[in-house]
């Protein structure tokens, strides 16, 4: 379980990105953070994983205050994290197989053949076959995302973070990625946090949904609750497209 307690983040230029955000992300559930572009979703996610320092407040990973640990102490928790970035962030100079083997090479004592076997298990899990020797630039966007998921789960993480996993993907591929994230979450009983503004993802995989608006936590509930909420800002966000307006109860 991950707990965000009274997190406040102000950048050096004085801009306040997060204002007293409190939230709990449950284990074995797909926790979705939704909000408009620039609302502070990515900053929150980067604060949670430690890529941004919080100005005040705490980030707890199972009661361990992560943001107060030093680099060496953080390392042990970071090895339990997997992250899927918006642009996949696969290493350009490595092949698909090498990308997945990379964390295994850095943090395990596995032999090369064991690492290869594990990489193949992960790649099969995300339905990537016969692409082991291709480079990221030779893959489609959806395939890159799936390889990034395979790399994220290679070390059997306890926490999975996904920053807008569907950006730049067609609706059908988006569903494939969403389903994969949800299946992996339930299969390995991990704590998953997904940043998204895709309403299909919200309705499809959102076990728990948190709405961020102008750096504040504005609303919290389940995907079923969203359609019946009386929160004005949330409704403006959720029912902003013609398609969602049609399904408004």
């Amino acid at each position, binding site marked *: 379980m991950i707990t965000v307690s009274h997190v406040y983040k102000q950048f050096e230029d004085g801009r306040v990105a997060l204002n007293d955000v409190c939230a709990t992300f449950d284990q074995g559930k797909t926790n979705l953070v939704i909000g408009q572009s620039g609302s502070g979703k990515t900053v929150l996610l980067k604060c949670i994983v430690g890529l941004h320092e919080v100005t005040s407040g705490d980030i707890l990973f199972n009661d361990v205050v992560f943001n107060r640990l030093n680099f060496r102490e953080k390392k042990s928790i*970071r090895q339990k*994290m997997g992250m899927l970035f918006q642009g996949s962030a696969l290493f350009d100079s490595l092949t698909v197989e090498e990308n997945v083997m990379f964390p295994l090479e*850095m943090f395990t004592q596995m032999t090369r053949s064991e690492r290869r076997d594990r990489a193949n298990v992960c790649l099969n899990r995300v339905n990537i076959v016969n692409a082991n020797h291709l480079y990221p630039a030779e893959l489609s966007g959806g395939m890159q995302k799936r390889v990034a998921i395979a790399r994220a789960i290679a070390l059997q993480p306890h926490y999975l973070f996904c920053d807008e996993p569907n950006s730049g993907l067609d609706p059908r591929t988006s569903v494939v990625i969403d389903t994969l994230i949800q299946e992996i979450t339930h299969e390995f009983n991990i704590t998953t946090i997904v940043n998204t503004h895709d309403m299909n993802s919200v309705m499809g995989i959102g076990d728990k949904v948190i709405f961020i608006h102008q750096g504040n936590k504005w609303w919290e509930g389940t995907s079923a609750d969203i359609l019946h909420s009386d929160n004005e800002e949330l409704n403006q966000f959720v029912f902003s497209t013609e398609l969602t307006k049609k399904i408004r109860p």
Partner: protein
Amino acid sequence: MFKSIKCATFAAIRCAGFNALRCGYRLRLSMRFFNLFGEYVLLMRKVFSRPEKFRVYYHQTIKEMDKLGLQSVGIVVVVSLFIGAIITIQTAYNLGNPLLPRYIIGLSTRDVMFLEFSSTIVSLILAGKVGSNIASEIGTMRVTEQIDALEIMGINSASYLIMPKIIATVLFNPFLTLVSMFVGIVGGWMAGVFTDVTTTQEYLWGIQFTFVPYYITYALIKMFVFSFIIATVSSFFGYRVRGGSLEVGRASTQSVVSSSVLVLMANLVLTKLLL
């Protein structure tokens, strides 16, 4: 009378204003320099921390030696060959006095190649080729979140990405200096003999005349220092990129300019210290 006092007062105020502006500008400039230097020192501290896994770093260093060193042999050979040839022809052209011995052609080619070209000028060439390569590679990794991906895994990204590059260039570039010396001398000989400005015997006598073996050590020490400057400064500018492709390009330019200037400054200091 009143008008001239008024003019003088305005002139004084304007002068004071300019001086204040100039002072402010200098202060800002020096603050920016100290800021950058501080960032550089902090990055180097991060770079030279204990590696996660020696085996992985070893493999990375070998790869970097190939990419940054071995793949630079071509340009070093071509440039050194032609510069050696040009030095020979220009020296011959300037030796109008028949009383001056022709072996001076070989001697001057040797001294220019050994003392300055094979270390300093080759370093400036490498600052352009290797420096921009390092800055743009690391900068692109930064803007495409590959460095963030390393950090999330718990890897010291600065050490993993930069240390192998520093070790590779510092170990391999002195070899490029030796190659440059040899090829430059050969280029000079070829130009001298083919254009008939000297003979093989005169040229060989010239390159052996009052030869000081310390010149080679001097060039290798200089190249060692310059390689460190090129690798660290370029990595620094690449690592601190924020934004997109425009910033990567800017970082690449900054890295080439800064490392070239620093190489020249270090050259002055080392020449004073070592010779």
